C-alpha cells in the first residue's frame, strides 16, 4: 500500500460544487500549499468548512466559495482576515455561521453517520435565526427539554497539514493542539494530508509518539510531501507564523490580490514559492507565536 502522491493529485480530487473541509485553526497549521495549488485550478462553487484563516481568505479572494460554514475567520496575530471581510461584506457567498462547538458537533454527527447531535447551544442567539434550516427536537425522556438538533456536516474532501506522514497514511501532529483535524477527516468521504516530511512507519514506533497521531490512516486517501507547506501560517514546533507576510497579504485585499497571485501562486511550485518568501532558512527561523 502506497498512498504517497503529489500536491496536485490532492487538488485533482477536489471538484466544483464539492464540500471541502480544511484543517488547522486560524493562522495555525493550515494546508496552504494545497490551497495555493487549488487557486491555480478552475474549481469553483465550493462549500468550505473551516476554523478559518488565510485558507478561507484566499479561496474567497479567488471567488471559489459558494457557501462558507464557519465559526470565525482570523489569522490570530493579525486578528481580522481582510479578504474574508471584503467578500463577506460584498455578500459574495452564502454563510452558515455557527458556534464553534456546534460546528464540532456537526462534524461529529457526520463522522458518526448520524443526522444530528443534540445540544443547547444556539438557543437565544442569532445562529438559529440566521440558519432556519437548523431544527429543534424534544427530549424523549422525562425531562422533555427542547434541544437544538445540530445537523451533520458531511464533507466530500478534507485536507489537513501534518508534521509527519508515512506511505500508509499514518500521520503525526507535533504541535500542542491537533485542533479538529481528525473530525474533519472522519466527517469526510476522503481525506488528504500534506506533510512536512514523509517518514518510514518505524518512526512512529514509540508509545508517546503514538499519542500525537489523532487521524486514523483508513480515512486517508493520499499523502503528499509539502515541507514548509503551512507557510504563512505556523507549524509548531518547526516554524511560526510569518506575520510580515500575513500583513502584506492582508493589505493586498485593497486591489493587490492579482499581484499577490502572480508573485506567490501562479506558475510557482512549492520550491519556487519558498524561494519567493526567503527560502527554508527564513521560514525555519520564524519564531513560534506566543499567545
Amino acid at each position: 500500500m502506497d498512498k504517497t502522491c503529489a500536491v496536485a493529485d490532492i487538488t485533482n480530487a477536489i471538484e466544483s460544487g464539492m464540500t471541502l473541509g480544511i484543517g488547522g485553526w486560524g493562522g495555525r497549521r493550515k494546508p496552504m500549499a494545497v490551497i495555493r495549488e487549488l487557486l491555480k485550478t478552475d474549481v469553483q462553487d465550493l462549500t468550505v468548512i473551516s476554523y478559518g484563516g488565510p485558507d478561507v481568505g484566499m479561496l474567497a479572494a479567488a471567488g471559489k466559495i459558494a457557501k462558507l460554514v464557519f465559526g470565525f475567520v482570523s489569522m490570530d496575530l493579525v486578528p481580522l482576515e481582510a479578504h474574508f471581510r471584503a467578500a463577506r461584506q460584498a455578500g459574495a457567498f452564502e454563510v452558515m455561521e455557527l458556534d464553534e462547538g456546534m460546528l464540532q458537533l456537526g462534524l461529529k454527527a457526520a463522522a458518526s453517520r448520524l443526522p444530528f447531535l443534540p445540544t443547547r447551544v444556539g438557543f437565544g442567539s442569532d445562529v438559529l435565526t440566521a440558519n432556519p434550516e437548523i431544527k429543534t427536537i424534544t427530549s424523549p425522556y422525562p425531562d422533555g427539554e427542547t434541544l437544538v438538533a445540530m445537523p451533520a456536516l458531511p464533507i466530500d474532501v478534507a485536507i489537513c497539514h501534518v508534521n509527519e506522514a508515512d506511505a500508509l497514511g499514518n500521520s503525526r501532529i507535533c504541535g500542542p493542539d491537533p485542533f479538529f483535524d481528525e473530525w474533519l477527516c472522519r466527517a469526510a468521504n476522503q481525506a488528504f494530508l500534506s506533510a512536512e516530511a514523509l517518514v518510514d512507519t518505524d518512526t512512529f514506533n514509540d508509545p508517546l509518539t503514538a499519542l500525537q497521531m489523532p487521524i486514523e490512516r483508513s480515512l486517508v486517501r493520499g499523502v503528499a510531501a509539502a515541507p514548509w507547506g503551512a507557510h504563512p501560517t505556523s507549524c509548531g514546533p518547526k516554524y511560526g507564523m510569518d506575520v510580515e507576510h500575513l500583513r502584506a497579504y492582508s493589505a493586498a485585499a485593497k486591489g493587490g490580490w492579482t499581484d499577490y497571485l502572480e508573485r506567490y501562486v501562479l506558475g510557482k511550485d512549492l520550491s519556487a514559492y519558498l524561494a519567493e518568501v526567503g527560502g527554508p532558512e527564513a521560514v525555519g527561523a520564524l519564531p513560534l507565536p506566543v499567545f
Partner: protein
Amino acid sequence: MSAYTLAELCICCAAEAFRGDGEALATSIGLVPRLGAGLAKLTFEPGLMITDGEAYLVREPVPVGPRGDYRPKIEGLMTYERVFDLIYKGKRHAMVTPVQVDRFGQMNISIIGDYERPKTALLGVRGYPGNTISNANSMFLPQHTKRAFVTGEVDMVGGIGYNPARWPNGHKPEHLDLRRIVTNLAVMDFQGPSHAIRVISLNPGVTFDEVQDNTGFELATAPGLSTTPAPTDEQLKLIRERLDPHDLRAGAIPGNPPGERSS
C-alpha cells in the same frame, strides 16, 4: 498608594470578576481579561485553572509578550477540543471583549450592520453562543460608548443574554450566568430589576451621568454606588513585575490615561 493607570485599574476589576470561581477554567480573551485572570490566581483565587493562551494548563500565569528564558509551567493539557468538552460541564468562566453589548447583555463580534451585506464583517460568533448558555461570562470594553452599548439589540446576537423573547419556550436557560462588565468608565453587573445592567462602581472622577450618557439604554444603579477601589501596591507590583513586564497594557485603552482622572 502609587499612581496607576486606567488599564491597571481595569485589570484589578477584571480580577475581581473571578472572585469565588474556585477551580473553574478561567478563559480570558484579550489582554485586560488575561491579566485579570492571572492577578486573581496570584492573589485570592489560587485554584483557578488558566492556560498559556495556546494549549496547556499552567500552574502560574505566563507573563504576556516576549518570554525570554521563561518557560510556561505546564500542569496539564487544554486543547480546543477539550475546552468545548468542558464548556458543557460548566466549570468555566469566560471573560471576553465584545464589540457590541445591549441592555440584555447580548454580545456581538460577528458583523456590524445588515447580516446579509454587513457594513463591517468582524470575526464570526466564535464560541459565544455555547459559552453564554453553558457557563459564567464577564466582559471588558475599553471604550464605553453608545456604539459599544447599543440601543435596541446588538446587530448579531452571538452571546445570549437576559432576553426572554429569545429563550426557548420563554424559560431562562438554566446555566445562563452573566457576571460583570468592566469598562474604562465603570464596573457593572446584571443584578438590576429582571437582570438589568446595573452600575456597581464608578471609576475615579467619572459620574453616573457620564456613564449613562455614553450608554444606549437605561442603566440601573446599585445601592451604595461607590468609587471603584484603587489597585493595592501588591496588585500593582504583580501586574508590573510578573504578569506584564513589557507594559503591553499601555496599549489596552486608547491614550493610556491615568487611573485617577483628576490628578
